[in-house]
């Protein structure tokens, strides 16, 4: 460039211009810095709390921690339901890039079977993508070892150890203790309705049947929380706070497991049920329904095949016959009927009826027969109960009328839920005029009353109701609600719950109790008694009543199936009893389906159980309680 151009430049003017512009530039810089700082002030001071909250929201996650489920003990401290560690293989779908490939690789490594896969696919559909889905529920030691070695190949797949319920007595306690199984949609809905959802945030299993279901609240406990710091990928960096869960209560049942096992053994392969109550407290000492099944199957998710087998078996193992089976009570209710007759003064201790073998009513074409074709001749109430005379009770029921029978038997609990701590219970049916009108839209006929007089006709009851009615007799009206739960364990020893009293039965003349109980004594201890043979030579004194029901009916929800009924056509054998006669310690109710006569089939079972419960003094292995 030519040097003369520079010489003609006005350096001073240029310098001034430049200085002015520089200062303007610095002013603009200051303004921009001001904007920047005021925005930072807004973020860091004005909205500090907001952003601090969001920053913590990013990094802090609250994880629920499931409480350990309470254990279940029998009355002598024997563990019935416990928690055992189980290893399961879990996949978090969200974290797995290629699910199909991962599954096929796991298949070759661990040998995943079709059943597992089917179960997995079903669960996959119903769960959120970031929730773990289990592929193998119970891993063998070998599977755990194999996977641990190859774990780095499987992102999003992990072995989880968790406590699972285990029922060591398996099918002996199924209908009583019940079982837990995976929480399903319906359970979730119920939990949401009762506001318990948060408490189950980390819980996998919930009580589905029996004590496990009824006492769910006690057994479950209170959820705990772990506050953790996570990074942007959700990995847990450290635990900030831990609020431990409160474990569920360890509960104690009134059940005596040895007695329960004895009951199971006594029933062997017979379809039916046995209830043993402590009349002093209402405590359920044993309750068994046969056939049973292994509840542990349900804990780990029962397969469709196994479930269908249980569901469709003609023996109906899923039903708790002791509380849900509705049978005609037959002659087992004669003592209670007699008591009402005596108290209503339609009969006296001495009044007699002539039993010719048949019974007829005026203007009724039907002839009712005694089970003993030739008749028993003149019988009074004691005699009638001992030999289970039908004609006497036809006459008694005719005199009482259905209204008195219905009202009286309702006081013994027939047609009502017993209030036992099980949800699986039926109320049976105590027929009445109103009931027949409502149910069949028919008037009550006098003939209907006659059948009810021997515990048949429209009358059905559960074996538990029968046991409870006997308990009411031996307690002379002051009865207790049957309870399976006895108490719970604490650090300071066991807490035993008080008994629950039911509405007492008040009669005009308390001597009538003695008449009826004496007749039941006669059934067992006098040679003409219906259970005399079955209880010969016992070293304890018991009393009872046999029953033989001519109908076949087991459960309310069973469909009527003519072909099957034809095959199951024999009578139901029933027996109710108590012992010792003075100051009874147990009440027992036995109901066997299609087994024949009660005296020869049900009574011997009751005896086996009583023999066990009251051991002879010289047998040291059965130490009396």
């Amino acid at each position, binding site marked *: 460039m030519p040097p003369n151009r520079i010489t003609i430049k006005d350096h001073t003017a240029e310098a001034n211009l430049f200085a002015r512009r520089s200062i303007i*530039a610095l002013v603009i810089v200051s303004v*921009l810095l001001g904007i*920047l*700082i005021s925005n930072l002030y807004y973020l860091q001071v004005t909205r500090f709390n907001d*952003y601090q909250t969001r920053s913590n929201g990013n990094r802090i996650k609250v994880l629920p921690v499931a409480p350990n489920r309470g254990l279940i003990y029998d009355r002598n401290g024997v563990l019935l339901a416990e928690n055992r560690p189980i290893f399961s293989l879990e996949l978090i779908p969200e974290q797995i890039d290629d699910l199909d490939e991962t599954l096929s690789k796991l298949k070759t490594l661990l040998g995943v079977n079709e059943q597992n896969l089917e179960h997995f696919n079903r669960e996959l559909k119903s769960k959120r993508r970031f929730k773990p889905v289990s592929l193998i529920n119970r891993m063998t030691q070998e599977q755990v070892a194999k996977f641990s070695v190859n774990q780095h190949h499987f992102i999003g797949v992990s072995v989880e150890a968790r406590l699972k319920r285990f029922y060591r007595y398996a099918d002996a306690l199924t209908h009583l203790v019940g079982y837990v199984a995976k929480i399903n949609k319906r359970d979730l809905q119920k939990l949401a309705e009762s506001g318990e959802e948060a408490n189950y945030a980390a819980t996998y299993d919930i009580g589905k049947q029996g004590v496990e279901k009824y006492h769910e609240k006690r057994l479950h406990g209170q959820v705990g929380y772990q506050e953790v710091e996570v*990074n942007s990928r959700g990995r847990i960096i450290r635990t900030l706070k831990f609020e431990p869960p409160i474990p569920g209560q360890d509960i104690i049942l009134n059940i005596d497991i040895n007695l329960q096992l004895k009951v199971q053994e006594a029933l062997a392969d017979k379809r039916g049920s046995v209830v043993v109550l402590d009349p002093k407290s209402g405590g359920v000492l044993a309750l068994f329904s046969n056939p049973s099944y292994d509840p542990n199957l349900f804990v780990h998710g029962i397969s469709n095949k196994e479930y269908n087998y249980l569901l469709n078996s003609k023996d109906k193992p899923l039903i708790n016959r002791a509380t849900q089976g509705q049978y005609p009570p037959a002659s087992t209710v004669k003592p209670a009927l007699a008591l009402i007759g005596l108290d209503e003064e339609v009969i006296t201790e001495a009044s007699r009826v002539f039993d010719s073998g048949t019974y007829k009513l005026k203007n009724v074409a039907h002839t009712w027969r005694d089970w003993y074709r030739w008749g028993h001749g003149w019988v009074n109430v004691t005699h009638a109960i001992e030999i289970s005379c039908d004609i006497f009770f036809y006459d008694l029921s005719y005199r009482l009328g259905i209204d008195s029978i219905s009202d009286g038997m309702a006081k013994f609990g027939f047609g009502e839920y017993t209030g036992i701590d099980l949800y699986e219970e039926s109320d049976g049916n105590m027929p009445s005029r109103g009931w027949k009108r409502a149910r069949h839209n028919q008037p009550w006929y006098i003939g209907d009353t006659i059948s009810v007089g021997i515990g048949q006709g429209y009358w059905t009851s559960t074996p538990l109701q029968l046991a409870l009615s006997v308990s009411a007799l031996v307690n002379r009206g002051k009865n207790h609600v049957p309870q399976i739960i006895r108490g719970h364990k604490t650090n300071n020893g066991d807490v035993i719950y008080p008994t629950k009293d039911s509405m007492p039965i008040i009669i005009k003349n308390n001597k009538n109790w003695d008449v009826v109980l004496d007749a039941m004594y006669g059934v067992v201890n006098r040679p003409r008694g219906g259970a005399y043979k079955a209880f010969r030579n016992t070293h304890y004194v018991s009393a009872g009543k046999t029953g033989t029901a001519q109908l076949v009916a087991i459960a309310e929800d069973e469909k009527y199936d003519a072909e099957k009924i034809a095959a199951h056509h024999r009578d139901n054998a029933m027996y109710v009893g108590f012992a010792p006669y003075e100051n009874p310690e147990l009440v027992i109710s036995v109901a066997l389906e299609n087994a024949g006569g009660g005296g020869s089939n049900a009574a011997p079972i009751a005896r086996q159980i009583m023999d066990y419960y009251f051991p002879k003094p010289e047998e040291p292995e059965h130490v009396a309680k």
Partner: protein
Amino acid sequence: MLRNNLNSNKQTTLQKIHIDGWLLCGLLMLMGVGLAVIYSAGGQDIDLIKRQLIRLAFAILVMIVVAQIPPLAYRRLSIHFYVIGIAMLVAVLVVGTIGKGAQRWLDLGFMRFQPSEIMKLAVPMMVAWYISRFNLPPRFRHTFMAFVLVIVPTLLIAKQPDLGTSLLIASSGIFVIFLAGLSWKLVFGFISVVSAFAPVMWFFLMQDYQKQRVLTFLNPETDPLGSGYHIIQSQIAIGSGGLQGKGFLQGTQSQLEFLPERHTDFIFSVFSEEFGLFGILALLTLYLFIIIRGMIISMRTQEAYSKLLAGSITLTFFVYVFVNMGMVSGILPVVGVPLPLISYGGTSMVTLLAGFGILMAISTQKRLMLRE
């Protein structure tokens, strides 16, 4: 003390090697802060620090070398730089290598090179050279020509596309024209033109991803897990730092990796989270110190070319700082501009320190120039 030495004939060691003590001091302090923040943001990775140290050492070396060259030589070479730069930009568009969705690189066989870096210095040099040939303030004709010199490389770079760099290059050229005495009529006219040009940019020049950035900038919460994620997490980091910050290595947003691009473009968020508003004010003071020192150098210089170039380099440095801080705190859209001297990364650091080298050459060699 330094100033006294400058006025006397006695020269300090630093002056002998043409280094401005004040600037060097400020730059080194910022680099020190940068290393500390990278250490925190990179998850205490010492290898990351080593690599950055090597880059810094190389960049300082470049600065010292550049400082040795007399400003007159730059003035003479301005046009050569510019022409070579333009040629390479065209070459990039034709045969350039694509990386990260943009065509910015020129593969020279032995190394990959980003020609836009050259233009960061070539554009202000060229414009300063052109405009200082005439009496200042420039006439309209000369102003127009100067703008053409700015717009051509700006558009070429915007086309790559590299919005951040084209923005910086445009500003560096415009600063020269502004300092040279751009008439106020034209300043306001220019602002009107830019406003009018914005829709044209939107519809014809901007790529989809750039449009998305602008939309996200206007309302990041519309897509909190997608395009809005960066800015939301960045604002959470800054905001949760509060006045005092969470403490060095204690920033949860950065340490737990919620913040993206932690040691590069979003390093200011890490700094803000851990050191708070007080830390930011201290950091801004350091930057302002360098800017004021740069403006002092520019004002003290007698010669117009050097004056304009020094002013432009200094103000462009401020634009770097402002755009980066503005984008991570949410007052500017996210364009990929690193925080100068702090962010981890190589190429731009070298260019930046080369610019400071020129500034130092201007500062220490004015006597030689006057003698000429």
